[in-house]
């Protein structure tokens, strides 16, 4: 399910001024389901293109011929959703904070994350604006889970990479290829705008 909740700068005034001489406002800056790691997880379901066979590998047959599609393992009912808030202190400084919900499929997880940073701005001239945004993300890793593959008499029950269990890799070596990805930990943006 993808709600497409990219709202842009919502700028909702959620809290009244706390003090007359120093207003503190909280804004909802952004809320979206556009996580790169969600896309990465979805790509696992798409398999890979095998050039030698000129075909896309999106699953495999078990020894008895039963088809096992990757798609069942890497789908989710709730994509990773992030919420970014801004607590504004005065005209030119604000604290960015937020979180992401994380995501869970049968064979992977994206951990929830904490997002924190600040935005500061200056006015080099009356018609220009210099803005610095720094945001750090803690946690939020994508980790692929393992499967238990039963190879019968020839190989016994082994912990394997689900996607590679029927390839020509020895079962134990498939674990080297478990997907792991981290979000972009630090985002720094410096922008300058001028109006004419």
């Amino acid at each position, binding site marked *: 399910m993808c709600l497409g909740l990219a709202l842009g700068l919502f700028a909702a005034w959620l809290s009244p001024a706390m003090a007359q001489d120093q207003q503190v406002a909280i804004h909802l800056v952004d809320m979206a389901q556009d996580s790169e790691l969600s896309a990465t997880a979805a790509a696992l379901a798409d398999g890979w293109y*095998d*050039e*030698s*066979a000129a075909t896309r590998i999106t699953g*495999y*047959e*078990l*020894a*008895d*011929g039963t088809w*096992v599609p990757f798609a069942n393992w890497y789908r989710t009912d709730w994509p990773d959703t992030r919420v970014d808030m801004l607590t504004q202190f005065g005209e030119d400084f604000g604290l960015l904070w937020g979180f992401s919900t994380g995501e869970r499929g049968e064979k992977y997880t994206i951990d929830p994350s904490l997002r924190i940073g600040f935005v500061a701005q200056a006015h080099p001239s009356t018609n220009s604006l210099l803005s610095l945004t720094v945001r750090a993300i803690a946690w939020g890793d994508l980790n692929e889970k393992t*499967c*238990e*593959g*039963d*190879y*019968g*008499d*020839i*190989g016994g029950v082994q912990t*394997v990479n*689900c996607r590679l*269990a*029927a*390839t*020509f*890799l*020895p*079962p134990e070596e498939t674990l080297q290829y478990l997907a792991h990805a981290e979000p972009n930990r630090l985002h720094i943006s410096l922008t300058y705008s001028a109006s004419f």
Partner: protein
Amino acid sequence: MTSRIQYLVTAAVAALVLICGVSTSIAQTTSPVFRNWMNPDVADAWAKGYKGQRTTITVIDDFTSGSRFTGNLGTGSLLQRHGEWTRLEASMIAPLATMKSQSFYSGTTVSLATGLNVLNLSYGMYARGTYTLNQLAWSAQESSIINYAKNGRAVVVKAAGNDGVAIGSNNSAGNKDFLNLALAGTQSAIYVGALTTNGTVANPAGLASYSNRAGTNTAIQSHFLVVGVDSSKTGMAGTSFAAPIISGYAAILGSKFTTATPTQITNQLLNTARKDTLLNYNAATYGMGEASLSRALAPLTIR
């Protein structure tokens, strides 16, 4: 009794040339190229880097006679001896397997290497069908091969034969392949028959008219596989060219299941063979079915 070695691809019998202890190894250095006579499973194996490494295929065959014939396995037309063809074919399926060759005229014990051993036997030992198995006096060569199969020390891949009869039956000349009979009931032998082409569910393949079939002996049926030998693509026919494909498959399986015994490799190939790719499947014709490398490599269950 008298016995003779008969090529399974031709009716000719070469003059016996006694060369003792002929055994050579060949290192494969060229990159493998998928050929149209191969099953697509083979390309998948290579794509993952599995080419039979850490295994040894020993081809016991004719490497010394003056008898040569022309074929083309996709590398251009060549004029080669029977053993040179079967060795080339097996090495093309499992290009990183260590290839060893032993002249079947040597009669000497077949030695085993460390790791998984696969013995390719694209020949038969024929005698009058009126003899019985216990009347035979095997050479050290065949004795060692039969014992390896009995004791599960090597995967012994045996071409089924080109007489168009059930294994164990007399051919039209009244002769019988006693090597087939001697391997019946052993734990790590595989008989290989030839299909006219690789089978698919959409286009199931039939047994080649020349190929021996499994017959009614369940001990043979349960160790009998078939693979495609498409003579229109290679210019060669015969179960001699079915066996090296299974030898290559066994080597590739050994690359994945590095601690598996020859008997386990044998059983995996037998138990995962397909029946839905064969025309009017029945065990007396096709035994366990068409070998499927991809299914042999796959788990029984995944969760």
